[in-house]
């Protein structure tokens, strides 16, 4: 409780070996009043920050792009896995104040086979100038240029659910959500349209 009260009052002491620039920055960061607290753009302009920061911040996802986990056999999705995807189980909105962003995952069924799905994704990669990494059941695409939040990266995973039916899950792995949504609607969905299973129209 003592710690929480200190946080609330902004009551702290810097160790003596901290430089005066670091001290000044930290005082502005630990301002309990969000209206007067320093903002991220201002932090990035501060003298302490500019001393030793890489020119371009690379995210972990970008660095690990080529570490595609070739490991285990994919788990076959069973009925309980499918059920657990429900938004009724996702209690996170209880804890977050903001409006939910658009879903970042896309799932569809396909009669496959997996190689067909993969070659479609390869075509999308070539057309959109993405670099691609793949195994038999996983595909990762990474944009060559940096977008608003780094390079857009998409991960796709193929799950068998029945002897000749697959469920494919595509999600954003890195980058800006708006760019991801645009990619999905303009490039991904059209390319997958004819293999994506939809119910037959009522006769």
């Amino acid at each position, binding site marked *: *409780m003592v710690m929480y009260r200190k946080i609330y009052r902004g009551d702290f002491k810097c160790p003596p070996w901290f430089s005066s620039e670091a001290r000044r920055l930290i005082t502005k960061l630990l301002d309990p009043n969000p209206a007067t607290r320093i903002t991220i753009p201002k932090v990035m302009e501060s003298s302490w920050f500019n001393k030793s920061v890489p020119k371009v911040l690379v995210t972990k996802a970008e660095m690990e792009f080529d570490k595609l986990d070739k490991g285990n056999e994919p788990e076959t999705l069973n009925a*309980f896995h499918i059920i657990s995807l429900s938004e*009724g*189980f996702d*209690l996170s909105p209880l*804890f977050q104040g903001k409006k*939910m962003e658009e879903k970042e995952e896309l799932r569809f*069924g396909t009669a496959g086979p997996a190689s067909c799905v993969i070659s479609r994704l390869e075509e999308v990669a070539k057309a959109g100038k993405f670099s691609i990494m793949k195994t038999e059941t996983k595909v990762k695409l990474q944009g060559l240029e940096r977008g608003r939040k780094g390079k857009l990266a998409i991960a796709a995973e193929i799950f068998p*659910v029945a002897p000749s039916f697959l*469920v494919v899950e595509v999600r954003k792995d890195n980058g800006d959500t708006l760019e991801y949504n645009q990619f999905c609607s303009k490039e991904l969905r059209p390319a997958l349209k004819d293999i994506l299973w939809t119910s037959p129209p009522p006769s």
Partner: protein
Amino acid sequence: MGCRLSKRSKLIPGYEKPTVLAAETPFTVSEVEALHELFKKLSSSIINDGLIHKEEFQLALFRNRNKRNLFADRIFDLFDVKRTGAIDFGEFIRSLGVFHPNAPTDDKVAFAFRLYDLRQTGYIEREELKEMVLALLHESDLVLPDDVVEVIVDKTFNDADLKGDSRIDPVEWKEFVSKNPSLIKNMTLPYLKDITLAFPSFVLNSEVEDSDV
């Protein structure tokens, strides 16, 4: 009489002291107090009576008080341990405790079983399983052919129903989960560990002494 009721217990039905709840769940006292702030917010969104009603739950989960969802209904019913039709503070904390990363796996396995036992018969029947799969497909944009749904339900059932009596009992379920641990992934909410960061204002209302934390 001599004992003064804490101001809080008069206002919130089912209120239990944070120290008691912390002792019986994976939460710390500070986390219980932070969750109290959340509970106050959720329970006052439509009817300000210190209870979370079904519509308030739906409002919080879907931003739509009228949205119905089979699985949200099941969660609500399980949280409402005393079956009063609304969730009080004690029920809220104890049920959420099962979702904490540090909660015992057995508790999570048991909770998931009761979740899926739609008609509370003590078993998960094949019809219940199929009903849930269809409910999921109905709510999402994933579409599967009918025959594939049958194959999926059959295979899952055969893998889980070891006794072959057309229903899954808690022992078979536990065995099934131990072979497929990802089945209870949705029973853990990692951000419950950071709950004091999400609701820092609990410090203002804390009734707890430093020595109790």
